């Protein structure tokens, strides 16, 4: 394995993460198994390894602490002392401190943090070196970094919220239930149980360290190899055409009914070459099939390498459940199911904090005390089940307990007392609507605020995480328990999307964001207060041109098309219809994040490379809706016939290029009268200079002109990217068909004769191309 890209500190952090995870789980298991010496051995090794790793980069504070932990574990193994709950707490705290080093950005940060916490760390090391039962109090340590969950929570609601698990000064001041005999007397209460699942135990893959950039490169190259494999298809088609032509040649030769030796040789040669061609075609077809299969398998494997087992997100849960239950005096059995279920590593990264919130919330609010449970006829020990499973193409992560259930009357009273809704309405809400209030920022049903939960910061964070990745959350509750189930995409790497065309280029919108896609006739567009709308399945939907929001210039074809493709996107309970050029189909797209050099590009979520090797952009539907509503509010979107309103915002500007002063003046006057702004140029060269200096919506040009004729002028514009889609109308005395064809072949949008001035077809052609004047 190439570790060249990793610094010594990177390797130290990786090692510390692994060993501290082992320490956290092992210490809890040790407590439950009353100091089984066999269980101490791996813990000693873990502490010893952390000490060794810290020694390599000379992190003195960490060396001392790891050494004290190792010595303490040696005493436990020898039976010199027993692992009391207090001792386990101290060891866990030591593990937490060492684990914190893995979150810091640099070696210097680690040194600075260890120095700032030197007194606390020394005191903890002293406590670990002292015999068990000594009344040593270790003061709280300042977390090395603020936990992400806490930051998110504070951002969501301006309420101070101390991290629950990290030892904090508030832990000693917040009134929480002391550890009860029932909890500490029943260490098995905290034992996490791994429930059998669809994939558990089947495949314990060894993990290796691979940099994410290498993985990304692998994904890119595997995608490209798939594109290249499919490129063979065009060779196969060429060969098939050659084979058909060859057969025609052979038939023609046969029909000549030639005689003699030379004719026989020719027929034989044709037959031989036909066989060779057949053979080549078979070989190409075979190669194409195998190449495509192999490239697909490689690509799928590369994509799946972004997946990690769900269990990776559950590392801290056993510890969290132990600590929270101990603090609240509750008896909880944690069951984790589906640890091997593959989850996109990006989702996994987002999942840890919400999972922690749900678990703490369940123990604090859902699960009763042992006495309450017994009184309710339930087993004394509660079961908290955390489960991951794939269902109908989604990842379901469910946190379920067998507690008291949500008290609906309390919830209703809370909604009314917080004046969030009228009593009549609140009383008529169904469960689904009622439970939605739980996710409002700052909403809590807890009568008292504890350090565990009840500040109303947490569930809103869980919901916003689910929404941020395109998922949702479902709550079910009964007197026998409550379940919070997050429905998330299985991967963020692949998105099922509708591929559409806007302004002549390809875009995509994730299907989960779309309500529906329809094709309507332009005549079905009606205006309401001047704004385009149409009726889709009985609902009047407001229409907005996607090109207008994206500030793209629409193609002439999309401006004049008689059928419109409408992509309906949900905006709350209502729908906004985006007019696009065409719907091209549904595809699974591998998501590529945009280059950070572009910053946050409005309306664009990511890029993707299609199977044909072309690039497309994945649009952010929510952002599109938001911009559409904002622009409407500001009065900047004013279309009235389904055609883009972008071109109607300002007066259309037209350039007339004509060498005859009379004709030039006739055209100028006609256009001015029709409401257009007009500039003039006296020949092609003059026109070429003019289009570079000012922005025009359309150019009208003569053909026969000095210096540069109209055909050359049009060709020159079409060769320049800036003007390749600028509409050009040629108006000429030449009315022969070949003249018209020459004009259109040069790139003109329309070819008219000067007689068109009389029958208004001149103005009509211009209106068709850029719309009528404002």
């Amino acid at each position, binding site marked *: 394995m190439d570790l060249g890209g990793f610094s010594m500190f990177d390797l130290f952090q990786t090692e510390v993460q692994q060993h501290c995870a082992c320490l956290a789980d092992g210490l809890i298991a040790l407590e439950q198994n009353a100091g089984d010496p066999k269980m101490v051995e791996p813990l000693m090794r873990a502490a010893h390894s952390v000490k060794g790793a810290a020694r390599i980069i000379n992190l003195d504070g960490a060396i001392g602490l790891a050494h004290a932990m190792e010595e303490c574990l040696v005493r436990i193994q020898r039976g010199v002392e027993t692992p009391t709950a207090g001792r386990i707490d101290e060891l866990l705290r030591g593990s937490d401190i060492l684990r914190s080093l893995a979150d810091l950005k640099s070696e210097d940060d680690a040194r600075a943090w260890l120095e700032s916490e030197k007194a606390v760390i020394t005191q903890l090391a002293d406590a670990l070196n002292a015999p068990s039962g000594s009344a040593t109090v270790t003061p709280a340590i300042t977390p090395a970094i603020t936990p992400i969950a806490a930051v998110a929570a504070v951002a969501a609601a301006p309420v101070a919220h101390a991290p629950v698990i990290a030892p904090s000064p508030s832990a000693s001041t917040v009134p929480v239930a002391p550890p009860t005999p029932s909890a500490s007397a029943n260490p098995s209460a905290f034992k996490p149980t791994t429930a059998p699942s669809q994939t558990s135990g089947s495949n314990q893959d060894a993990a290796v360290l691979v940099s994410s950039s290498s993985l990304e490169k692998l994904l*890119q*190259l595997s995608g490209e190899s798939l594109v290249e494999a499919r490129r063979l298809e065009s060779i196969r088609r060429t060969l098939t055409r050659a084979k058909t032509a060859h057969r025609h040649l052979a038939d023609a030769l046969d029909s000549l009914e030639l005689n003699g030796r030379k004719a026989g040789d020719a027929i034989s040669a044709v037959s031989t070459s036909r066989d060779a061609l057949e053979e080549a075609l078979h070989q190409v077809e075979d190669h194409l099939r195998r190449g495509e299969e192999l490239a697909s398998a490689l690509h799928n494997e590369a994509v799946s390498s972004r997946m990690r087992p769900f269990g990776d997100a559950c590392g801290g849960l056993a510890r969290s459940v132990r600590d929270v239950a101990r603090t609240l005096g509750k008896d909880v059995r944690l069951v984790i199911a589906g640890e091997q279920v593959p989850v996109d590593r990006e989702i996994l990264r987002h999942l840890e904090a919400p999972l922690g919130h749900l678990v703490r919330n369940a123990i604090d609010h859902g699960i009763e005390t042992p006495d309450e449970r017994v009184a309710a006829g339930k087993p004394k020990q509660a079961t908290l089940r955390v489960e991951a499973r794939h269902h109908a193409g989604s990842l379901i992560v469910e946190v379920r307990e067998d507690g008291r259930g949500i008290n609906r009357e309390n919830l209703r009273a809370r909604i009314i007392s917080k004046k969030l809704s009228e009593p009549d309405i609140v009383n008529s809400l169904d469960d689904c609507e009622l439970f939605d209030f739980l996710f409002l920022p700052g909403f809590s049903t807890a009568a008292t605020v504890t350090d565990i939960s009840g500040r109303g910061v947490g569930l809103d964070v869980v919901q916003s995480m689910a929404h941020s990745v395109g998922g949702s959350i479902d709550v079910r509750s009964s007197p026998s328990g409550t379940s919070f189930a997050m429905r998330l995409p299985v991967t963020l790497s692949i998105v099922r999307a509708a591929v559409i065309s806007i302004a002549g*280029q390809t875009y995509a919108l994730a299907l989960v964001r779309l309500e529906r896609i329809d094709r309507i006739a332009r005549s079905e567009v009606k205006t309401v207060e001047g704004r385009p709308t149409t009726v889709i399945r009985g609902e009047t939907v407001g229409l907005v041109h996607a090109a207008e929001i994206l500030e793209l210039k629409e193609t002439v074809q999309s401006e004049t098309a008689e059928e419109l493709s409408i992509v309906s996107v949900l905006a709350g309970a209502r729908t906004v219809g985006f007019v696009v050029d065409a719907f091209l189909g549904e595809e699974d797209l591998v998501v590529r994040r945009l280059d950070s050099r572009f*910053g946050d590009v*409005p309306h664009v979520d990511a890029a993707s490379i299609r199977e044909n090797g072309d*690039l497309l*952009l994945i649009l952010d539907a929510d952002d599109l809706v938001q911009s559409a509503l904002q622009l409407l509010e500001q009065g900047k979107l004013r279309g009235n016939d389904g055609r883009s309103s972008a071109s109607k915002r300002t007066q259309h500007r037209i350039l007339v290029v004509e060498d005859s002063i009379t004709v030039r003046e006739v055209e100028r006057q006609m256009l001015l009268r029709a409401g257009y702004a007009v500039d003039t140029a006296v020949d092609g060269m003059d026109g070429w200079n003019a289009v570079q200096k000012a922005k025009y919506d359309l150019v009208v040009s003569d053909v026969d002109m000095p210096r540069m004729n109209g055909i050359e002028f049009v060709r020159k514009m079409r*060769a320049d*990217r800036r003007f390749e889609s600028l509409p050009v109308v040629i108006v000429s005395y030449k009315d022969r068909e070949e003249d018209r064809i020459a004009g259109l072949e040069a790139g003109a949008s329309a070819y008219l004769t000067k007689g068109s001035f009389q029958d208004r077809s001149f103005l009509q052609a211009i209106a068709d191309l850029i719309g009528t004047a404002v």
Partner: protein
Amino acid sequence: MSTTDSPTPNDRRAAMARLLDRPNMPATVAEATKASAESRILRREPQINLLLFRCGSEWFAMPAECVVHVSRVTKVHALPHRTNHAFRGLTASSGAVVPVIDLLGMLAIEAAPATATSKPRMVIVAAAKEQESWAFEADAVPGVYAMPRTAVKPLPLTVEQAPRRVTSGLLTTTHGPASLIDPVRLLSEFKNAIG
């Protein structure tokens, strides 16, 4: 009696040996020494490898070590709200998403009509190894040429004093004068344009 017998094989061998063993003429030695010394001088002169390409009506050269690869022209997708005179959009190259600079627009060069020698190519460039790459479309890319560093001549004063120049020197090539592009300056201009 004189005899005019033809030389025997032994005579021929002896003549060949005499020819090969003859002492070197001073002039021959001097000539060979000079030639050998000259070739060493030439070899010692710093060489640069440059990719030569044409954009519109102008020829350019760029240090070959910056060039990741030259490929067929791929479709460029405009990036809404970002595409402008200097930035055409994004393209797919070797499975990666690569931004495409509009050299014509950025350097205000006139587009040239396609000719028989036109063979458009997409040039993928990275200013340094492991840095993010970017691309531009050239109308023709004849290849990579090695030339002595001294062949790079200073820019005319009017170009050198221009506030946003991206070239660092001039070269004379078989295709005519070519501007030597400084990839770092070009990338910096590109970043200013998209920023």
